[in-house]
């Protein structure tokens, strides 16, 4: 159909891109994770498993990883709890204003992530909007400290940022449900609530899984929100990786942690795709 030259011409650029910016860096990351740092701060290019032993020996790494997963799980849950009803409303009840509402969901994505994280800082800070308001109405005497520099602040901010990522796939899944299935369910005697749980929700599961994966994976690797709003108790695994590659100058350990994260995330993506396939019927 197309000449070999033509096919080569369209395949080659993306191939080069993938090799140059994905495969080679991952290869280097892999190699680094088995190397070590000498006391004189140079990379020793001899193979060792020390980094991986270190990772499991020092509590703080595993603790931070578990904390990161716990934060990501909460972000995922809250994003789904907020995103599902919104997507459901958009798909079933927004009527002619559907497109407008859809745009309203997307617009926050145009605002820089950094700006939104900073915005929460001004809201949650001890002299922030929320504390000033609470003191003004005499709900508290002193500013509430747990609002900022805490896992709470991180979960709140990440939920705000990633909710649109759950709304969109759920909305798409709901839009794909033929409306005559809803009518058929009512026709067979199912109330609106029964119809939701027996027909609409099961058929929207692929969207829920996609949204959950987005929210979880993106939060798990997040680095800015804990840096700006997390404080010492809200440190996440990416912050540790950043400091290992930076100030601590321990690239091999940083690479080992990154590789573990990568394996975790890729397995999650793989699992979620499997589940999505299982729950789609087209």
């Amino acid at each position: 159909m197309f000449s070999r030259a033509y096919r080569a011409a369209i395949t080659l650029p993306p191939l080069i891109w993938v090799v140059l910016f994905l495969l080679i860096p991952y290869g280097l990351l892999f190699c680094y994770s088995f190397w070590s740092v000498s006391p004189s701060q140079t990379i020793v290019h001899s193979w060792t498993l020390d980094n991986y032993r270190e990772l499991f020996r020092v509590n703080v790494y595993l603790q931070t990883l578990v904390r990161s997963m716990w934060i990501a799980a909460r972000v995922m849950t809250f994003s789904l709890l907020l995103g599902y009803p919104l997507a459901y409303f958009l798909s079933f009840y927004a009527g002619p204003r559907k497109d407008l509402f859809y745009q309203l969901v997307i617009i926050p994505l145009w605002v820089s992530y950094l700006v939104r994280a900073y915005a929460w800082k001004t809201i949650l800070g001890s002299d922030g909007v929320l504390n000033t308001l609470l003191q003004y109405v005499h709900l508290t005497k002193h500013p509430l400290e747990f609002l900022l520099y805490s896992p709470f602040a991180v979960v709140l901010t990440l939920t705000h940022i990633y909710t649109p990522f759950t709304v969109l796939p759920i909305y798409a899944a709901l839009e794909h449900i033929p409306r005559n299935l809803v009518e058929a369910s009512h026709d067979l005697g199912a109330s609106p609530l029964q119809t939701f749980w027996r027909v609409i929700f099961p058929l929207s599961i692929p969207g829920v899984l996609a949204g959950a994966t987005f929210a979880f994976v993106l939060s798990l690797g997040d680095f800015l929100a804990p840096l700006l709003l997390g404080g010492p108790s809200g440190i996440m695994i990416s912050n540790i990786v950043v400091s290992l590659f930076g100030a601590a100058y321990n690239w091999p350990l940083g690479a080992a942690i990154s590789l573990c994260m990568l394996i975790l995330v890729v397995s999650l993506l793989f699992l979620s795709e499997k589940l999505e396939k299982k729950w789609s019927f087209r």
Partner: protein
Amino acid sequence: MATTTEPVVTSAKAGLQPLLAIRNVAKSFGRNPVLRDISLQIAEGEFLTILGESGSGKTTLLRIIAGFESADSGEILMEGERLDVLPPYRRRVNTVFQNYALFPHLTVEENVGYGLRVTKLPKTEIADRVTEALAMVKMTAFAKSKPAKISGGQQQRIALARALVNRPRLLLLDEPLSALDANLRRQMQVELKSLQREVGISFVFVTHDQEEAMVMSDRIALLRMGELEQVASPREIYSHPATAYTAQFIGHTNLLRGEIKSGIVHCNSLSWRVGLPEGPALFSLRPENIRIVPPATDNADVNVVTFHGKIRHQAFHGATELLQVVCDDGHTLSVRTATREQRQGDLHLEFSPMDAVPVRESAISTSGERG
């Protein structure tokens, strides 16, 4: 306003009050009227077909009975009680959807049992009734399959079983056979009709296919541009169409426009006696009621109208053929006769005046005339 022939109830099962009474139902979408003042009754155990072209409002009427749309005015009663005020899930009416609307995430068995499960019947009863329903449509072997794994005809049967298992008072069918190929379709027409007799549930069947309507129905309600054109049994509607539209839509016909003067119709060069008032008149004459006769019988019998014509076109239909015959006066008539190889020259033709059925002009001339 089209008058409707009084319902001819074909079975003795019909009680004093109809199962379903539709009274003066009207519906518009925006400024576009879809149904105007529809009144129709459906008897217990009756197979009623709502027949109409696309856009005639037939599906809307069905959706109003099912409860998916609400009428702007008028009411619907089931056994004397208001049906139109109930939500769809409280009506003892079930629907077989045009593209079946089977739940893709449930097995055949779960689909059929859906209506029983949501009404929280005991598990054993559900299992028994599902088994029975699957046996009724001969789909027992596919109980554990997902809908995507079975053919269109099989999905059709499951949709039917899923509706009938709830023992509705009335079953609505929205062009359920339109997605099937011709052979399967004919087979399903027969099966559906015998199934309906077996279960004794009233069926309201929506279709645009007049042949299908004729084969299956006890009565046909012909809908045109949101109004009932005629409601009658297939035989009645075919042999005594009330309007020119009905005559043309159901079967094939010749419309003869004439003038009645002192008891005699003058239609082009033809004339015959009728007992109708003076003035312009329109008659429907079915092509099969015109006979080709040997020249010898060309006499002045008062009980037949005779004329001559030449064949302009001949269409072979298997057992019969349809001839376009140009009469001496220049008008063309369709004639249906048994197939014969050679036919040429002048034909001698005749028909009985009783076969020329007077019909009313249809209110608004149809856009695409069908014959």
